[in-house]
């Protein structure tokens, strides 16, 4: 089917080449990648998402992550290769005329940080890379409860209130890696963020928060309008 008059209004996006300084991916064959110190680096210990050995499962991601009209380029996941940028207050140069900057990022836990470009402060809440994106009221029981059971005879200890995290997921999978094993059902995520760069600005200053990790940057107006109202409004709690 063809619509007469249909035309591409979508500008293509352009991935930026980043100066990676952190290794946050590991393959099944070597889950210690990013955590070990068998390849000492001048920069010191620069690996894992949480500094405790947690890495993204490299076998679950490809060379690109697509989200709508934006394409993010993912760096090499080979053993010892760096594939992310730790935010240490450094500057990243932007191509001339950049209007919109897309970030693919995550932090060890939900983190409110401020990027700067031109005279503009660009606050973002970077999502924690693992954990649940949300939950209903969840009951916790006293004493020992076998995981594969109902808690029929244990007294109720507390009810953890429901929540929803609203960062936009660009990529996710249902496990992550620890140095010695798969952390099954310990989900991992990469989130997409969109920043409007002030006219004339030629660079962006990253926040000084080392566990905020940038996996990719892409420039270009993908044709997205201002975000619509969240469809989760009725799930929000006090």
């Amino acid at each position, binding site marked *: 089917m063809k619509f007469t008059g249909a035309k591409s*209004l979508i500008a293509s996006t352009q991935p930026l080449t980043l100066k990676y300084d952190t290794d946050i991916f590991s393959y099944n064959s070597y889950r210690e990648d990013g955590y070990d110190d068998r390849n000492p680096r001048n920069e010191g210990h620069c690996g894992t998402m949480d500094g405790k050995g947690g890495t993204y499962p490299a076998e679950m991601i490809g060379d690109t992550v697509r989200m709508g009209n934006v394409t993010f380029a993912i760096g090499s996941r080979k053993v010892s290769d760096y594939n992310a940028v730790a935010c240490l207050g450094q500057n990243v140069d932007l191509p001339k005329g950049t209007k919109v900057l897309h970030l693919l990022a995550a932090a060890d836990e939900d983190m409110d940080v401020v990027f700067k470009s031109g005279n503009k402060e660009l606050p973002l809440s970077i999502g924690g890379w693992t954990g649940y994106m949300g939950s209903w009221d969840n009951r916790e029981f006293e004493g020992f409860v076998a995981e594969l059971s*109902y808690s029929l005879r244990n007294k109720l200890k507390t009810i953890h209130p429901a929540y929803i995290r609203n960062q936009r997921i660009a990529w996710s999978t249902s496990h992550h890696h620890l140095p010695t094993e798969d952390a099954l059902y310990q989900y991992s995520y990469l989130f997409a963020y969109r920043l409007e760069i002030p006219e004339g600005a030629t660079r962006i200053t990253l926040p000084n928060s080392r566990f905020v990790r940038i996996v990719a940057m892409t420039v270009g107006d993908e044709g997205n309008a201002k975000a619509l109202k969240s469809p989760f409004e009725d799930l929000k709690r006090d």
Partner: protein
Amino acid sequence: MERLKANEQKSGLPIDYYYLGGGDKNNADRGGQIQKVNLETLEKSLATSGPIKVISGQADLMFRAITDKQAAKLPTWNSELQLIEHSTGVLSSQAYTKKLNRDAELLADASERAAVSALLLTGATYPQQTLNNAWGLMLRNQFHDNLPGTSIPKVYEHSWNDGIIALNQFAGVYKDAIGALVQTLNTDVTGVPIVVYNLLSI
């Protein structure tokens, strides 16, 4: 024998039907493979001539063998087809999982329509990978224990999360598509332009 006799009394046909290799007792939850002891019993039953003639075959074999004349005598069941030993009375069990499922179904439909419109009218990328992924998570939650509410509690933590990821992705597709469509509109008007997208097409 009792079931065969009861069936004969009700329908005139002394026949019955069993699955082999299914059900929790036969390790269906671990892949549904037939246990050695069941296979041996089956082979023995096929080889001997007892009061019951055993036939091992495909699931539709028995139903196809029933003639129209025989079928005319079958009794009529005019009530619920309830599975009496599984998922009975779970309409209100794990209501939040049911809500997530319904929300995801509605949002899947809305985001699909919006994404196709955006593709056709603006040339926006059709987010097939994201939609497939979100659909996969939604359908996984429709597994016969999850959605009815008969899984163990731990499963629901994962189930909620999968449902919430699916909603997150569908909502993202929806926002992208509407964003692209809105850019085709002339909003150069007096006052503040407001765009309304009616996903119900009414």
